[in-house]
């Protein structure tokens, strides 16, 4: 019921863009956007996950207080971007979803975006609803556990979604040089 109410208020909030998209074919059944999750970004804007439909996305999950591996996830996303042509880069979005919505408020996400110098057009730092975190992680094949000291133990992975939200490729090689097989999949997905 709670979920239904959320869904209804959510439908109301996004009725306009949904109507504009009604000419699009139905969402593929194997799309992660089948999950009616919504987020708040670093500018405190609420958006539905399926609002990312239409542009291939590089997706991962992180938390801002992470000291070791999470910065590598950002580095990994940047390394992919830097390997692309300017035209390719324009067509790719990067969505980093927080595992820690309690602490990763829009203000915290904004600070991270500024600290890491992330392009606000291409990069989205997303705070999910607390009850959706494990469901989102499951669709991305990410396992995680909150540790006693507030850190998180989690799978470090970059996931490539096509424009319809289907998982095309994934790599656990983050940071340093991009995984060549993964990069090739990104390039193929970006072919207009």
């Amino acid at each position, binding site marked *: 019921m709670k*979920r239904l109410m959320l869904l209804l208020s959510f439908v109301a909030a996004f009725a306009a863009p949904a109507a504009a998209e009604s000419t699009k074919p139905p969402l593929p059944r194997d*799309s992660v956007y089948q999950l009616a999750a919504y987020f708040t970004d670093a500018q405190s804007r609420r958006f539905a996950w399926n609002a990312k439909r239409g542009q291939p996305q590089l997706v991962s999950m992180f938390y801002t207080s*992470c000291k070791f591996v999470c910065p590598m996830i950002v580095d990994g996303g940047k390394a992919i971007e830097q390997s692309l042509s300017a035209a390719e880069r324009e067509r790719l979005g990067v969505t980093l979803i927080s595992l820690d919505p309690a602490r990763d408020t829009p203000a915290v996400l904004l600070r991270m975006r500024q600290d890491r110098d992330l392009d606000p057009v291409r990069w989205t730092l997303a705070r999910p609803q607390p009850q959706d975190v*494990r*469901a989102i992680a499951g*669709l991305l094949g990410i*396992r995680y556990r*909150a540790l006693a000291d507030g*850190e998180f133990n989690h799978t470090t992975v970059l996931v490539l979604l096509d424009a319809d939200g289907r998982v095309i490729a994934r790599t656990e090689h*983050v940071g340093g040089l991009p995984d060549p097989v993964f990069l090739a999949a990104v390039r193929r997905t970006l072919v207009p």
Partner: protein
Amino acid sequence: MRALLVICLLPLVASAGEVTGYARIAGGDFITALKYEDARGPTKVAPFDIMRRPVTNAEFLAFVTRNPAWRRDRVAPVFAGPDYLAHWPAPARLSPDGLGGQPVTRVSWYAANAYCEEQGARLPRWFEWEYVAAADETRRDARRDPAWRERILGWYARPSSRSLPRSGAQAANAYGVRDLHGVVWEWTDDYSALLVSGDNRNQGDPDRTQFCGAGALSIDDRENYAVLMRVAMLSSLGGSDTTMNLGFRCVREVR
């Protein structure tokens, strides 16, 4: 005096007899069989209510009928794999051979989660499940008893092709909860928090660092097969996976 005696006995009799509904678990400090690098000492288990037996096929059919998006012919494959509810003769019908009373299996985590959410409940967390499952018929913590362990091991040794018994047919444990062992495996809310996959065991290469931070899991109580095997199984599953012996029950928060 006699009236007093009757009053004292009533709650006991009631909890031993009820098969459906939820049982109240008071919670407390719990020594888990799992060992995490980051957490030492007893785990605090807060009070909760737990279903007295696993959800049945008939109950799940009612859910699917109310929520057709969860029919096996309509569900999005990202939420449930190809064998989801494959043992039903039709997407919204059961066979009349007793299937309805058996625990529902071949359900994905997403489907089990949606069922509990509809009930105003959620899936149990691992520690909640382990806490209640530590009991036998008379003791809240029977885990040190070799006979109890033997009995559980006996179930794991039985072939899984045998048809399932009716849900709730076994004797209730000390909490009035049934079938935590001996019938089906059960989903937990935090199945994907059990990070024991061997993938990152022998990797010195920092580019392949799979998990962020410390906190590796090991098993503290290697004699506890009930826990060992459940953890191994849950840690190997994805959210859309189903198996022929994996069902679930729900818990409710106590306010």
